[in-house]
């Protein structure tokens, strides 16, 4: 059992947190690494605040009890994806879950491995930008015009019906 007086969360608590993150932010193609790093960032940040440490320790420790009361299954970590998601929807406004999400959303997607998995190239200046690395490599649409329109039509800045009753001299 985790003990808030020691500012450490035990392995059961951390396992529940990793499982919670996967249920709240489900990406089937992500391995465990990004979720585990995010869990560690959450635990680390909770250490900076007594309030967060209190709610997080208690929240993670009682997930199993909630899982048992809901489904009869013993542990949160054993719930399937749908059951875990249902459980989380039921505690959406709980302070510890709000805290978890506030850290997770800025940590999980600020991860080099996740960037690679999502197809994001990340820092580019040192490599000369994307000028010669595919900034215009999209080939499933035709190349569009880049110049401004120079055809016969004029953009009507004010529709005729919207001219003021007493039109100013300079329209």
């Amino acid at each position: 059992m985790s003990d808030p007086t020691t500012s450490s969360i035990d392995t059961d608590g951390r396992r529940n947190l990793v499982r919670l993150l996967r249920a709240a932010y489900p990406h089937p193609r992500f391995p465990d690494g990004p979720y585990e790093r995010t869990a560690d960032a959450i635990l680390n940040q909770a250490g900076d605040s007594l309030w967060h440490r209190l709610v997080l320790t208690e929240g993670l420790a009682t997930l199993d009890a909630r899982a048992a009361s809901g489904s009869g299954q013993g542990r949160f970590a054993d719930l399937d994806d749908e059951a875990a998601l249902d459980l989380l929807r039921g505690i959406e406004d709980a302070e510890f879950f709000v805290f978890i999400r506030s850290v997770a959303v800025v940590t999980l997607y600020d991860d080099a491995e996740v960037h690679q998995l999502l197809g994001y190239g990340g820092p580019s200046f040192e490599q000369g930008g994307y000028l010669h690395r595919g900034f215009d490599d999209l080939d499933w649409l035709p190349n569009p015009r880049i110049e401004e329109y120079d055809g016969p039509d004029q953009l009507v800045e004010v529709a005729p019906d919207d001219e003021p009753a007493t039109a100013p001299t300079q329209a």
Partner: protein
Amino acid sequence: MGTENVDPNQRSDADSLRSQQDHYGASIDHDEEVVVIVGSGAGGGTLAYELTAKGVPCVVLEAGPYLMPEDYENDEWASFKQMAWLDARTASGPYRVARDFPNLPAWVVKAVGGSTTHWSGATPRFRAHEFKTRTYYGDIEGANTLDWPITLEELAPYYDRAEKAIGSTHRHGRPPLPANNNYKVFANGAEKVGYEFYATGPYGTNAEPYDGRPASIQDGFNFQGDKSTAKWSTAVREIPRAIKTGKCDLRPNSQAVQVTHDASGRANAVLYVDKDGNLHRQAARVVCVAGNSIESPRLLLMSASALHPDGLANSSGQVGRNYMRHLTGSVYARFEEPVHMYRGETMAGIIADEARQDTSRGFVGGYYMETLSLGPAFLAAFADPGEWGPGFTEVMDAYQNTAGMWIVGEDLPQETNRVTLNASVKDQWGLPAADVWYQDHPNDVAMRTHGYSRADLLYEAVGAVGVHHTPPYPATHNLGTCRLGARPEDGVADTWGQAHDVPGLFISDGSQMTSGAAANPTLTIVALAIRQAEYIADQLAKGAG
């Protein structure tokens, strides 16, 4: 930017960066009465260069550090912590930002160069009727429309000069930027739905070398400062040139906290705190306030005196009111094929077809559509703040195949949308933080709904398999809180930006905007600053300053 995570103490910190001097350029005595400019962004930086180039000595007080291009980071959160304005502020009112980001009403920059450091670069001009909203939009319930004491015709020559200073593409012989991937989707969709007035600009980043700076390398990090300097900002153009004149004394890490006046009511000094919290006084002949639309009214409200009990230059009661943040909303569309929207210039794609006055659409005013890309880190924070679960991860999982656009349009000025001093929240110096209270006008909601639906049609026309609407996030365009008005009863400042109530005090940033128009504001702020600098130099030469 989870609300829990915005903590100024987490800054990667300016103090640790190289080359932090107390000041740059000329050493101007604190007792010498000079032009004192508060802020070094689009307004303040431009004024500093235009005035010192004419031989007028200026002290520039900049709250943030002097970051160099090599300091800028190709990393969204690291850059945010490096340059965003994270001092204590509050957001309140019914708008969603107050719930999602209660301590971050605006995403603006605290550094030399101000928000030109992270601006996108889009440079459309305001249209003629947008300077005359009272005339064209009429008396709209709940709105506080007013015609500017300036017309497009008067500002046009200064727009020319501003476009040349910035090096806007598609203007004055500057070539267009090429199409990046995000633009290819955007422009093909535009063509399919019948839009005509689209292009990769005008845009304030070099397509070819210009003005001593290189061409874009399409690195995709212009919101994080542009390390290559292909993008115009006052940090890479106006400020270094002002320093070279020998007439400019730039003091970074100097937060203006009060503007004082003499017995006759004329502005005569600015008090500021340095990075160690020491208070200084710089004597002034003229004071130009250009701290962006939250800090500028805050400074005037903190400058209340026995002569100005409701805040300096506030006999109209309009200081802090009519806060505008532009309509804003983003649309991200998912496709079956890769897009890689993050590669290349972030906002080099503009559609102007909806930027017009046509009330048959159900609202007054208009909006632009502009390409937009965020990295996964920011997309996760902004796409639908607070959201989680499979609906959220579906958006993130599609990142590689996603195209994005921003809808930027005119929101109406409302007296109750305002910046005030929050007596219960203090900044790091113990001074009252700014509170920003905001509520959408029904016209804003109607326009945003229209914009979302047009964006959906555009993307569906080129095969989108899903679209996501992102709500307005912390404002990058902050306008109108010290507005111009022909009559002292209606506005804070006159046609030159000089306060009606306080001789020698000028409003020099986006807070002077009487209405916000559909266009991104930076070009107009620069044009107004060039015009104002001419007036100030002229008045000083006549001895009237």
